[in-house]
Structures are given as C-alpha cells and as structure tokens.
C-alpha cells in the first residue's frame, strides 16, 4: 500500500461538529436510532429468511418479507475501508479535520456495513482489516451515533 502523506505532527482523528448532525428517521429507521440512544447497536433481520438488511427498510431484498426482528450486536467490527478528510469541504468543519469516515463491517450479519467515524487513532495508524470496537458518541440530548476505535 502507498504510504499515506501525513504531517510530521500528525494529529489524532477528530470528529465532525455536533451542530452539523441532525437525524430525520422514518418508521423503519427509528428503531435503530432509539436503540442507539440507549447505547445498543441493533440491526434488523428478516423474520422469514434471516437476511440482515441495512439501512433498515420496508422489505427484505431477498424474499420481500416486511417483518423484522432487531438483533443486538456485540459492538465488534472490522475496518472494510475508509478515507481521511484532510480538507474541510465546508467552513463549518474547518476546526474538525482530519476526521475519518470509515466503513465498518459487522461480524455475523452477512456483511452489513456501517458508515462511522474512527476515533482514538492517528490517520497513519489506520489499516483496512483492523479489528474495531464500538464507542457511542452522544451528539445531542436526543441523538447518539456509533463511532469505532481500534480494538
């Protein structure tokens, strides 16, 4: 892999500012976000064929069943891929770079992936395939989102 370009005084990964984070759940996604507020990571699974689907949605993409059960996850994950946002795309994030949007695969879900920030890590330490563990980020009183750190 190509050596990433990192400054000599490489900072720890930061996080996008809380004021940019707002949720607009619908009847299918609200259970995920309600559980997140309780610091529980849940993924919907088809009650008919057992296929996990994500994001939560109206139909099983395999058998078109609508009913799901929400299966609580361990919080373990594997880094599938990521980017390091070095440049602030908006003035609102100029104090928040670098931050790391990552794609995290959850074990035992048939490959469900979450998009979440990596924390407690420097950009140059990040490796695809590394083991991760969940860290909840309480953003607002009514909003909690998952982040991950090296396990």
């Amino acid at each position, binding site marked *: *892999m*190509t050596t*990433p*370009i990192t400054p000599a005084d490489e900072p720890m990964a930061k*996080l*996008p500012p809380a*004021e*940019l*984070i*707002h*949720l*607009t*759940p*619908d009847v*299918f*996604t609200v259970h995920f*976000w309600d559980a997140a507020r309780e610091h529980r990571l849940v993924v919907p699974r088809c009650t008919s064929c057992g296929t996990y689907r*994500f*994001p939560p949605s109206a139909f099983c*993409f395999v058998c078109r069943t609508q009913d799901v059960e929400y299966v609580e996850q361990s919080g373990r994950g594997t880094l*599938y*891929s*990521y*980017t*390091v*946002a*070095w*440049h602030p*795309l*908006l003035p*609102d*994030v100029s104090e*928040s770079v670098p*931050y790391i*949007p*990552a*794609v995290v695969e959850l074990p035992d879900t048939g*490959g*469900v*992936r*979450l*998009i*979440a*920030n990596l924390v407690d890590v420097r*950009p140059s330490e990040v490796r*695809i*395939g590394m083991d991760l563990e969940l860290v909840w980020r309480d*953003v607002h009183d009514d909003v909690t*989102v998952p982040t991950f750190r090296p396990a």
Partner: protein
Amino acid sequence: MSLKDKAAVVGVGATQYYKRGQSVPQTPLEMAGKAMLAALDDAGLAVDDVDGLALYSFGLGGDTSLFAQTMGIPEVRFTAMLTGGGGGAAGSVGLAAAAIDSGMATTVVSLMTLQQAVSRFGTSYAPRGKPGAQYSASPSPEKDFASPAGLMGPGQMFAVLAMRHMHLYGTQREHFAEVAISQRENAIKRETSLMQVPLTLDDYFNARLIAEPLCLFDFCLECDGAVAVVTTTLDRAQDLRQPPVKVTASAHGGHGRWGQAITWMNMPDEYFVSSGHRPVAQRLWDMAGMTEADVDVALLYDHFSPMVIMQLEDYGFCPIGEGGRFVADGNIRYGTGSIPVNTHGGNLSEAYIIGMTHVKEAVEQLRGTAVNQVADAEVALVTGGPASIPTSSLLLTR
C-alpha cells in the same frame, strides 16, 4: 432486435466552458439554448426539426415545458430523462436512439447545462448544518447513515472505494497521478480546456490531500457551461452537413444491489471495488457484437481519477485489479498508448459538464476532426459516471 446502428449523432455543440460561477449573468436555460443552436447548426438542422429531448440529471436548466416554449420547438413528441445523476450521461444518447428506433421521434436533442455559482456538487451531500448553510442536500432517513460521519461530498465517498482498491490490488497514488497527468497533457493542446499548464508528478504530490488517498488533482474541475448532442435516423443522417456517427450500442442500469452505491456502502463485496459498470459493459458489447479490443479511443467519465482505472477494468481493457499497473505502463497515453483515454482532457482538465464533453469528443474523433486525433479512429467508447444506478455507456462508430 436492438437499436444497433439505427440512429446517428449528426450534431454537437457547446458554449464556452467556464470555471465555477463565471457564466453568470447567463442563465442555465440560456446556455442550454445556445448549445442546442450550436449543435443544430453543426448538423445543418434547425429548431423546427427537433421533436424529441432525451436527457439525464435534469440537464435542461429547467423543465422540458419551459425549454420548449422558450425555444419554440414546434411539437415535442418524445421527452424523457434517465433517472439518477451523471451516471446517465452517455446513456442519454442511447435514450435518443431508442426514441428514434421506436418511431416516437426523429430528431432528438440530448443536453447538459451546468452552473455551479450557488450549489456545488463537491459538497452535494453536506448536512443542512447551520441555518442558511449552502450546498446542502435535503435530509433523508437513508442519509442519516452517512452524513453524521462527515461524508459530505462524492470525492470523499469515492476515496473509500479507491482506498480499498489500493488495499486489495496494490494500486498506488502514482497510478492515480498518471491518469491526471496524461489527461492534462491532452488538455493543454486544446483551446477549449480550462487547464492549460502541464502537470508534473511533483505538482501532484505537493498538492493538498482532500480525502485520502485523493488529492486536488484527482478531483474533476468545477465548471459552468452547456453541451448538446443531436441524434436522428440513420437515413436522415446521410444528407446532413457532417458525416454520420452511428449509435452502434448503448446500455444503462446496473445491479440493483449496487443501488445508491457510494452513499450507502453496502454493495456486495464481489463488486464493491468497481465502477458499477460491469453489467452495463457486458450488455454494450453484446449489443454491438464487439469487445474492448475493437475500441480505438475511450472517453471514460472521470470525476475522480481512480474511477478511470476501475472502468478500464470493468470494460475489460485489463484484468480486475490490474488497472493501476495498466495505466502506469503508459497504456492510456494519447499517441503511444494501447487505448488512448480522454483525449480531450476530460472532466479533470478540459471541463466538467457532467460527461457530455465526452460524447462531443467521441463524435469529433470519429469525424476525424479532434484536436488530439487518434489515427483512423472508427470505434469510440463513451461512459457515464460511476455513480448510483443507472450507470451507462455508448458505443459510437463511423
């Protein structure tokens, strides 16, 4: 039965290309009209001949109704738009050919007009943020699973695919640089190009990283302007001002589970690291009865340099995973490479009009009038953007 060789592109036209915001005070619809008039003039046709519009990504700068009344199109007999965004660029000309082959229309205009004075595609997924914040997408339950992590632009999202390509296949930033540098070489020979200064490897590695592994020069330009393409029946094309360029094949769509692609990141592992084009490519070759070996020049949608590499793989110019080394070996260079790519300089260095400049270049190559003319070019491949479905492509022949 297919639309193979039933229609021909007979006219192409464009406004000047501008850096973002500099086309003001023209309006997007005004530029659309100018581009259409230029394309009709190129063909030796007039507005009175137009009876169809085949579009993608809201390309008119307004609805068909407003455009038709403003331009005085006598009767609209076909108006349709591919769903999605830039993925449909090449496919809009296929849609025109389908309209013509079906008999619903005879002379169809495909068009893109773009003005990024206010809204910028580079931050098109930014959350609403503070009151009055610009450039933000409307919220949705699906975006809730991407935007809290700060994924707010397509470049950051495609960077995630590029990073995994590097991980799986050993692709290097030098390979992305070769895409940018080779296209800049092509661009600087053209008056229409916004970028006129050569790009060196030092320039590339000294540029700011935006979304690792992508730096400034891996990103396309942010532009204003309009490009129009006129397609008509092959019969009618014989008597017009320009030699006809046949629509030999076109396809659009993609795997359903490619879906929204970069904004959901749950595409199946087997093609996560791809351009999303593989099923479209297969149908294109099947319709044409050709393969990548028949292509003389490839105009591959280049919003981000790694996606050129992945399209070279998905269209079969090299094995999956070998795209980086394929470009590093000089294969995409104009004049010396085995498959010249983006001879106009592309979205990276000529202008970004959401892919319609690629159609224009393909037509000029097949007429033999391109600035960076590929000798005896007979077959040109044009692709739409690697994007959420539909992606699309077009095979033009002379």
